């Protein structure tokens, strides 16, 4: 990949949002959570998850400081999605080269 400067600026901005700005996120329930609580069906959400995620609730495990745990989880997730987005792009471009 050619080292285009905008790619690194974009990634840095994303990491800043995911790792730092995320600490300022409102802890209030989101739209669906609010509606589900108000209408009494929030308890229908499966409390023991069908699949145990390694970083539930956007918190890095084993870190007592919640802000640090959130920042690390956001930082890590942002990197994972950068890599995955690139990977998917590369994969579909290979499809094209094969004459799909």
């Amino acid at each position, binding site marked *: 990949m050619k080292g285009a400067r905008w790619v690194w600026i974009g990634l840095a901005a994303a990491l800043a949002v995911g790792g730092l700005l995320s600490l300022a996120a409102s802890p209030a329930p989101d739209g669906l959570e*609010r509606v589900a609580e108000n209408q009494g069906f929030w308890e229908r959400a499966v409390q023991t998850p069908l699949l145990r995620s390694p970083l539930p609730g956007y918190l890095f495990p084993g870190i007592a400081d919640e802000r640090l745990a959130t920042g690390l989880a956001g930082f890590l997730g942002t990197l994972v999605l950068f890599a995955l987005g690139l990977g998917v792009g590369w994969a*579909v471009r290979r499809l094209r080269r094969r004459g799909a």
Partner: protein
Amino acid sequence: MHIPDGFLSTPVWAAAGAVSAGAVALSASRVGRTLEDKQVPLMGVAAAFIFAAQMVNFPIASGTSGHLGGGVLAMLLLGPWASTLVMAAILIVQALLFQDGGITALGANVLNMGVLACLLGFLVFRSLRRLLAGTQGALISAFITAWLMVVLGASLAAVEIALSGTIPLRLVLPAMAGVHALIGTGEGLITTAALAFLLRVRRDLVHPLCLPRAAAGGAA
């Protein structure tokens, strides 16, 4: 509006999963023909940025927050097909790594927040842009599209939840549409601000099919 496990019945989540899987497969087969080299790193940056921005909940009303969905923003940068793949990737990682959105509800969440905004959103944006020329027209089109896709996505989630027998539609539909009419305003503002910024500094990163339509003479 990530639906957790437990809200959807098996027929509903299976049907939504089938629709989303079909849309993702169609996108993967279509995108290769149109993907420019520059769009490969842009897929990485867009996926990273939209994931990150989704973490930043903003307060909307008494004890309620909303956050960016980002489907329309992804569509404006990557076009309908590549953006569908990026949104699916984000929702898969959120469900697997962060337990945000259920595993069984993954297909429904990809449909409500990804496929709808990227594919239907593309058609809506293009139709609006046909009516509204120039940079201002494109920005207004982006705001309306982003707002509408949030409200439609929330309404679709309400229909899925109601079809599952979790709660009657007459209760959940107005509530979901109402609260997301507010959240959609935030979505519209963020999407429009991002588009305005990119049109000014890096116009080439906006997808060619989503650039402003020239009012008279100019290139678009």
